[in-house]
């Protein structure tokens, strides 16, 4: 079984559209994250939820809205997509906010291409 799974793996869409990426983890972790990886492989944290509560919001445009219906799921909805949103979005999870092991468990990524 995949520990952290994201869907879809690939997403191609037009500017101005709205899209969502879903993430699920079956590791029983309390904390989940969204990271954005740009074309130069730079990884930037976007959001983090701890047990369904938003704890990190890294000055991401409000076109991006995360939602965590329960601690095993963290979805990312993006409104009015722009060319600069093209990237690979990674979901990750961690037990108890990293204070226990610090290890992040990553999904395989969702590659978003905005045309």
């Amino acid at each position, binding site marked *: 079984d995949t520990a952290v799974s994201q869907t879809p793996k690939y997403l191609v869409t037009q500017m101005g559209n709205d899209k969502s990426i879903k993430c699920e983890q079956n590791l029983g972790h309390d904390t989940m994250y969204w990271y954005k990886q740009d074309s130069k*492989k730079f990884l930037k944290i976007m959001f983090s939820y701890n047990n369904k509560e938003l704890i990190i919001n890294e000055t991401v445009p409000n076109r991006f809205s995360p939602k965590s219906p329960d601690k095993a799921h963290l979805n990312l909805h993006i409104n009015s997509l722009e060319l600069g949103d093209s990237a690979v979005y*990674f979901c*990750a999870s961690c037990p108890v906010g990293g204070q226990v*092991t610090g*290890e*992040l468990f990553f*999904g395989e*990524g969702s590659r978003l291409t905005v045309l």
Partner: protein
Amino acid sequence: AQSVTQPDIHITVSEGASLELRCNYSYGATPYLFWYVQSPGQGLQLLLKYFSGDTLVQGIKGFEAEFKRSQSSFNLRKPSVHWSDAAEYFCAILNTGGFKTIFGAGTRLFVKA
């Protein structure tokens, strides 16, 4: 604020040769440091981590890293590189609150036959 610098954008080594990837960090207290590897088209996987104690830490796939406080460094090493080690390597630091991992820009490793 904590930060991580990986000075080398890419490195090429011959198969069987030794490898050292550099990482420097900025943090006032004892840092929590990590090395992750990303194979093409994949997510990141933890290679090893340093929290405290022995400054030489062993990881998976034959990798090790040494924490040097005096140099603010946490360099990754492997004595003999295999072709399958070709990947992107990220050094990372955990922030004070323990909820945010900050990544370096990554070093791309190429392995030549």
